[in-house]
């Protein structure tokens, strides 16, 4: 079957799901999964084949002929979209079912279909006007998904913040596509490397798509939106929607001439975003907010790869640029898989306990063994540890950076600090996910809700298992994926077509297999030995502490205390502490909150000042005619003075 | 320039960082005095044959910077009963990182400066810049007067290193000027320390803010 046929049927199925979604949830699910499967097949046909798929209509939509194009770059993102969209749809059927949420589940399904369809169209559209329409519809449907739970005030305000930020971004994109169309004389998109004068437009691209990608400091909307949306929505937002921003940056940095400093700026933004994002993630006490900030880090990691590739293009170093870009693109897949899995796991926790506050959870593994195991697996992946997929892409990235360093080229000056920052971010990610995983799932339950948790059902578990399988597959057979990545890299920069796989990629895959095998073997031997020697169960020894209570366990705030102290200047944690007083102290408490620094300490004061200035200016307008005439006279006098003094020799 | 000199300047840079990272006054003073000795030896290494006035200058520097001034500081510390812990305004780790960043920046800057060809390969200029930077960092970031005197001494050491560039042209002049400057500086600080001590029973310069009115 040709990609055209597959995509047409997928489009038909997705459109049908939009119509039937409100009433028939079963049919809707089948249609969404079929559409995803058909699109997946088309994307893989393009990725593993040699030719792009292109289609121009002979009729006009909105005054422009439709132009769809599926090449290596868009296919990579389309694959991710299909997998997460289908998994999220299945997951959402139980998580946000009609039975539990009769008010919002139907419109959730419609918004889901609309968002997925428009994301897919945005990936395929090769016409600026149609791209903008699809992009706007995608943004709007995401807004409705975020405020699905609109009885809760935080969800509503998060959605508004998202919409406001998205529109700032849209403004940039309108400007970008408008200027592009005016300069090239057509809305048609494609490689425009002959227009060197369009280079400054890259900054608009970076700003417009950057808000969607959510790198620091444009991430202001991301933590609240991703944490307050229902978890299957958080999964697709973090897994795919922010990658749409990355897609825009990758797409147009490949099609346009970029300004000379672009590589350095993107590399710097990536490194900063990685380190700052993960520092904020580590300090969070809300499980989903932690995951959201972690997405900021991973967007940074991806940008490091893109920035490296741009730098390599500027300095004509194909060898390491390819590796960096391939690492970035693979990380797009990897992050999509494990972050969606993590959000699904957290959704399962929220489903079972009704809270996202880590300090109210604990000991969930007994009630939720599947979720706990899958979360542990995803934690290893997200921390970038071997033998899982997070490591493979970070390894490719590092390899690119190290190769650049080994060449000692001038461009590589940027690479040394970035590699060190990446290592520190990796270590912090490890700390973050040790904290998140163990505080939530291990130790003793801290509250009643944690004690009475229950495991999620098969419809939620199934998609989680699929995503976990994807994580494992991506880790164990990276060499198999190389042709797809090489194709995308070649689509980005035609000069890099036919990139040879790094010889070591195969070795790395085998090492992973051996490592995983040996680890399982040793674990089995040890477990058998422990069984054979006999075990005794008792309370946690804890150096003989007599009466430990669950509340005495290390909390998430305490765990992050050391790093929080180092980065207090950045985090600006607000804490309220009521000490115990007197011989029979009453209730005492300590509440800590990590504000969204850029939003609350930069944007809010700036906005406040603007509003104050505007209010002051409004006093000038009060409807008294005499005063207006006075303004007129004063204005005339001012003009006269300017003319008089300006005109003097 | 020769290898031993560069090694010594490397040592001076290392001691800069040590001074920034040391949490107690005695180790700070030790770093400063070691630096003084290292600087004192340098003129001897720069000349192919040792002339008497250069030797004299070297001897004076080693005794002055390496022995006398540190001894004075130690005595002041003992007689004024100062707590040995340094209280930093700028924490040790940040000041260490800043110092390292400054050292790297000094290296890069010295690379860009239009220097004489025989001095381009040498570490003298970066060493001098780094020491001056370290001195300022200590003056800004530490609260105790003795730590600040040490910062001032390191700053002076940086200027002295610059002076070494001129040693061929007017050796004694440079040395004498520097030493004089230094003596005056230490005197002034000595007087200030004494006054603060008498006034506030402590030499924490933060208390000076009460004089604001």
């Amino acid at each position, binding site marked *: 079957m040709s990609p055209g046929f597959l995509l047409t049927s997928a489009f038909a199925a997705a459109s049908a799901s939009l119509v039937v979604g409100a009433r028939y949830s079963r049919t809707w699910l089948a249609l969404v999964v079929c559409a995803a499967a058909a699109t997946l097949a088309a994307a893989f046909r393009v990725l593993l084949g040699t030719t792009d798929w292109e289609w121009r209509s002979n009729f006009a939509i909105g005054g422009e002929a439709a132009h769809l194009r599926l090449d290596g770059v868009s296919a990579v993102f389309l694959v991710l979209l299909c997998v997460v969209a289908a998994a999220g749809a299945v997951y959402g059927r139980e998580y946000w079912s009609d039975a539990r949420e009769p008010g919002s589940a139907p419109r959730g399904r419609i918004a889901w279909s609309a968002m997925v369809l428009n994301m897919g169209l945005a990936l395929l559209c090769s016409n600026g006007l149609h791209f903008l329409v699809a992009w706007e519809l995608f943004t709007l449907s995401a807004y409705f998904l975020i405020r699905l739970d609109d009885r809760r005030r935080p969800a509503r305000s998060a959605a508004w913040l998202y919409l406001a930020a998205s529109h700032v971004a849209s403004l940039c994109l309108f400007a970008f596509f408008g200027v592009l169309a005016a300069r090239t004389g057509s809305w048609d998109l494609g490689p425009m490397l002959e227009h060197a004068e369009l280079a400054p437009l890259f900054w608009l691209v970076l700003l417009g798509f950057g808000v969607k990608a959510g790198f620091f400091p444009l991430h202001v909307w991301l933590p609240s939106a991703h944490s307050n949306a229902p978890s299957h929505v958080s999964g697709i937002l973090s897994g795919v929607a922010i990658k749409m921003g990355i897609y825009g940056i990758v797409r147009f940095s490949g099609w346009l001439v970029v300004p000379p400093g672009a590589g350095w700026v993107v590399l710097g933004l990536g490194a900063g975003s990685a380190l700052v994002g993960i520092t904020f993630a580590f300090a969070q006490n809300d499980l989903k907010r932690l995951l959201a900030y972690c997405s900021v880090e991973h967007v940074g990691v991806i940008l490091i790869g893109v920035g490296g590739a741009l730098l390599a293009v500027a300095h004509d170093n194909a060898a390491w640029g390819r590796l960096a870009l391939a690492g970035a693109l693979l990380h797009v897949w990897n992050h999509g898989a494990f972050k969606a899995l993590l959000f699904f796991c957290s959704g399962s926790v929220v489903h079972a306990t009704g809270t996202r506050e880590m300090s109210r959870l604990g000991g969930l593994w007994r009630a939720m063994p599947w979720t706990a195991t899958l979360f542990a697996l995803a934690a290893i992946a997200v921390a970038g540890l071997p033998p899982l997929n997070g490591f493979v892409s970070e390894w490719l990235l590092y390899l690119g950076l190290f190769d650049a360093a080994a060449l000692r080229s001038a461009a590589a000056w940027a690479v040394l600090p970035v590699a*060190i920052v990446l290592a520190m971010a990796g270590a912090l990610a490890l*700390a973050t996910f040790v904290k998140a995983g163990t505080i939530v799932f291990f130790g003793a339950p801290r509250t009643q809700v944690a004690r009475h948790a229950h495991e999620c059902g098969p419809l939620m578990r199934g998609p989680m298992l699929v995503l976990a399988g994807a994580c494992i597959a991506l880790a164990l057979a990276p060499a198999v994926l190389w042709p797809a990545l090489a194709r995308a890299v070649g689509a980005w920069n035609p000069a890099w077509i036919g990139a040879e796989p790094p*010889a070591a990629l195969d070795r790395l895959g085998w*090492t992973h297999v051996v490592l995983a095998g040996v680890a399982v073997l040793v674990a089995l031997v*040890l477990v058998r030995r422990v069984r054979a020697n006999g075990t005794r169960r008792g309370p946690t020894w804890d150096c003989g502490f007599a009466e430990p209570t669950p509340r005495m366990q290390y909390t998430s705030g305490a765990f992050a205390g050391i790093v929080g102290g*180092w980065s207090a200047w950045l985090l600006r944690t607000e804490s309220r502490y009521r000490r115990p007083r007197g011989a029979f102290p009453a209730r005492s408490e300590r509440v800590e909150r990590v504000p969204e620094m850029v939003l609350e300490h930069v944007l809010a004061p700036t906005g406040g000042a603007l509003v104050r200035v505007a209010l002051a200016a409004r006093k000038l307008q009060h409807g008294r005619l005499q005063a207006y005439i006075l303004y007129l006279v004063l204005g005339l006098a001012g003009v006269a003075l300017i003319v008089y003094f300006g005109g003097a020799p | 320039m020769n290898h031993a000199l560069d090694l010594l300047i490397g040592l001076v840079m290392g001691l800069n960082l040590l001074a920034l990272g040391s949490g107690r006054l005695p180790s700070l003073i030790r770093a400063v005095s070691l630096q003084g000795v290292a600087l004192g030896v340098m003129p001897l290494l720069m000349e192919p044959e040792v002339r008497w006035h250069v030797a004299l200058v070297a001897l004076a520097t080693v005794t002055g910077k390496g022995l006398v001034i540190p001894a004075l500081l130690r005595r002041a510390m003992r007689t004024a009963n100062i707590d040995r812990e340094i209280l930093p305004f700028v924490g040790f780790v940040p000041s260490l990182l800043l110092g390292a960043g400054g050292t790297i920046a000094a290296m890069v800057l010295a690379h860009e400066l239009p220097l004489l060809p025989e001095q381009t390969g040498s*570490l003298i200029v970066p060493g001098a810049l780094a020491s001056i930077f370290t001195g300022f960092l200590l003056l800004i970031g530490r609260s105790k007067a003795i730590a600040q005197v040490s910062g001032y001494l390191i700053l002076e050491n940086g200027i002295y290193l610059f002076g070494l560039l001129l040693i061929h042209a007017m050796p004694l002049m440079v040395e004498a000027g520097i030493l004089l400057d230094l003596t005056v500086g230490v005197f002034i600080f000595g007087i200030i320390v004494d006054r603060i001590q008498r006034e506030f029973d402590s030499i924490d310069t933060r208390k000076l803010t009460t004089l604001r009115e």
Partner: protein
Amino acid sequence: MNVLLDVLLRAVVWLALAPLLPGIITKTKAWVAGRRGPPVLQLSYDLARLWRKGVVLSTLVSPGFVIGPAVAWVAVFGAALLLPLGALGTGLGFEGDVLLFVYLLALARFCTAWAAMETGSAFEGMGAAREVSYAVLSEAAIIAAVLALCVQSGSTSLVAMLTPAAGAGAVLLAAGLFVVLLAENCRVPFDDPNTHLELTMIHEVMVLDHSGPPLAVILHGASVKLLLFAVFLTEAVLPMGSLTPLAATGALAASVLVVTLATGMTESLLARFAFRRVPLLLTVGFLLCLFALLFAWRGGPA
């Protein structure tokens, strides 16, 4: 076949020799203090004894509490097998295995900290928090050191990186890696491996609830890690490539012994640092590695 033999031989060397190092350190400390000290093989005896013992498990822990140490051991051991041992093991390895090396050590840390947190003990939580937080600084130092080796040798494969001499920055690199060795292996002045009930410990406090075979695995893994850092430090500095195979092996063995003795001497002569000084010392280690990197970049003394 040859490769398999090589791997087997090295595995045996790592397995057998690693438990000697803590013994040598203890012996050195005893010698400095004028005592006789336990035999060098004490750790091996302990391991054998622990392997036969029963296990006490907390009622709170999951099977991960036993699996964690096993995976951590495999990770450290895998990292060790990536290192060439003198003339041995130069045939294996691939471009970029140095990153696998660094991240396998991180995997070991993840598993240990995870297992410690499973007990729900505040004490072990504290240890795990310290371990993962300070690792941020030591990770930066290790990557700076690795970058220095990479810049200098122009390769990203451990075997190629470790063959030439470290050049001008060798002293800095050795000092920096030694600081990292002390920090990562819970030696004085970062941590005191002899105490068990100090509030100031990092690594030791994480294994409080382990017993029997899992504890044996943890202790053996720790000794492998110590040997691994000693070997890495030695090979990073010594010009292994310019020696004959026999001489290289001899030099390696002698230098590892020297590093071990130096660790013992450091432990005897230094007191454990106050806790707030630990980041400072780690920063110093990082800066040493960073300056070694800059030296390597400029290709010699400036």
